[in-house]
C-alpha cells in the first residue's frame, strides 16, 4: 500500500510531548528488545534508532489495544492482528503508566468519541448545540453515531 513517506517523516520531526528512549520489541518471533527513541506525534508512534534522525518506522495508533505486560512494560496490539504484540519496556512504573495513557488517548477515534460525548452532554444541559456557533454542526466527523436519537428538542442539527 502506498503512503506519503516524505510527509510522514516530516511529521515525525514535529514537537511532541511524549518522546523517550524505551526498550522495544517487534512482533516477530526472533525479535529481541532494542533501545529505541520512541516518539508520539498525533496518532502515530514513531520509533528511531537512538542515533539516527530518520525514523525506522511508524505505527498508526487507530484500532489498537494497549495492555500492561508487567510493572514496567506495556504492549500495543492491533485489532486485526491480535497475536502480534509490540512490546515496550519503560524505566519505571510511572513512565509505563504515562505512556499507556498517552497512547490510548492518541487515536483520532478516541477524540471523536469524547467530542460526541461533550457535545451531547452540553446540549442536554443547555439545550444548545455547542458547535453551532462555529458553523460546524453538520460535519460528519462530529455526528452522534448512526440512528441514535437525542432526547431534547433542537436535535435536527445533530
Amino acid at each position, binding site marked *: 500500500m*502506498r*503512503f506519503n513517506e516524505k510527509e510522514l517523516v516530516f511529521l515525525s520531526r514535529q514537537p511532541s510531548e511524549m518522546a523517550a528512549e524505551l526498550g522495544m520489541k517487534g512482533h516477530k518471533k526472533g525479535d529481541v528488545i532494542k533501545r529505541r527513541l520512541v516518539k508520539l506525534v498525533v*496518532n502515530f508512534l514513531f520509533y528511531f534508532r537512538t542515533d539516527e534522525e530518520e525514523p525506522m518506522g511508524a505505527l498508526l495508533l487507530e484500532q489498537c489495544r494497549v495492555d500492561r505486560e508487567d510493572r514496567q512494560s506495556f504492549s500495543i496490539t492491533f485489532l486485526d492482528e491480535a497475536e502480534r504484540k509490540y512490546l515496550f519496556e519503560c524505566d519505571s512504573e510511572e513512565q509505563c503508566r504515562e505512556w499507556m495513557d498517552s497512547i490510548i488517548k492518541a487515536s483520532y477515534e478516541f477524540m*471523536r468519541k469524547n467530542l460526541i*460525548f461533550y457535545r451531547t452532554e*452540553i446540549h442536554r444541559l443547555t439545550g444548545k448545540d455547542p458547535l453551532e456557533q462555529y458553523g460546524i454542526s453538520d460535519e460528519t466527523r462530529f455526528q452522534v453515531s448512526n440512528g*441514535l436519537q437525542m432526547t431534547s428538542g433542537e436535535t435536527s442539527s445533530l
Partner: protein
Amino acid sequence: MKLNERSVAHYATCDSPPDKTGFLFKKGERNTAYHRRWFVLKGNMLFYFEERDSREPIGVIVLEGCTVELCESAEEFAFAIKFDCPKARVYKMAAETQAAMESWVKALSRASFDYMRLVVKELERQLEEIQEATGNGNVPGRPKLSRRNHMARSKSGVSSSSSSSSSSLSSTSAFGVPSVPSHSSAQKMSQDEVQLNSGSSKENGVTWSKPPALVNGALDGASSCAAWEGSADSGNNGVKRYAADGVRAPPVPPRRRGASLESPVSPGTGCFSKLHDWYGKEVEDLRVQWLQSQ
C-alpha cells in the same frame, strides 16, 4: 520507513464510519493522467481504492499538516493537497461537480488531528464551565434561595396581583420557557424556588430549559456534588446522576484543582487532564450504556 500497513489498511475498511467517501480523480505521479479512484476519508487519513468495492486500498495520504487549495488546472473542479515539508509531493485532485469539490475541500481541510483536538478541548472547557456553574448553583444556591423566598414573600405582600401570579407560576411550572421573564420580579422568584439546580438562569449566564421532571435529576446532581466534596474514595460508584428521563448519566468531570494523582473524584485531586485520564476510560462504557437506554 516501515509502517504498520496491514493495520492501517484495516482501519480503512473496518466498520468505523468514514468521514467522507466518493469518487475523485487523482493525478498520477509518474503517469500524469488523472485516474478515477474511490476515496475514503477517515480521521486524518485519506485512503484511495481502485474501485468502490475493492477490498484493500491502493494507497493512503496522511493528511496531517496539509493545506488544501483550489488550483489552476485543465481539469474542472480541481484542487490540490499540499504539504509544508521540503520536496513534498503535491496531490492534484479533481472532483466531478462543483459541489463535490467544495465539500471535499472543506472536509479535507478540517481532517487534521490537531483540528479535532482543538474542538475537543474547547468543548471540554465549555462543559467544565457549565459543570462549575452547576456546582456553584447547587451548594451555595440553597442559602441564596432562602433569601429569595423571603424576599418573594415580602414582595408579594406589596401587591396582590404579583402574589397571585407567583403562585400560579409555581403550580403550572412553566419551566419549558428558557428565558426568565423580566416583567415581573415575583414570577422570577418563584421560578427560582423550583429551579434548584442552578439558581436563576440570569445569575449563571446559562439558560436552563429543563421541564419540571428534571428537578429530581437536579437534586440528585446536587447530592452527588456534595458527595464529591465530602468523600475522597467514593469513586464514581456511589454517585448516581440522572438525566431528564431518569436514565443514569455518565459521570460529571470534577473541577480543576492542584496537581496530584490521588482518587480522581476527590477535590484534592489532580489537574483536569489527570482527572480526564481516569474519566476518559469511563466515558466510553457509560456512554454506550446511556445511549443504549435512550
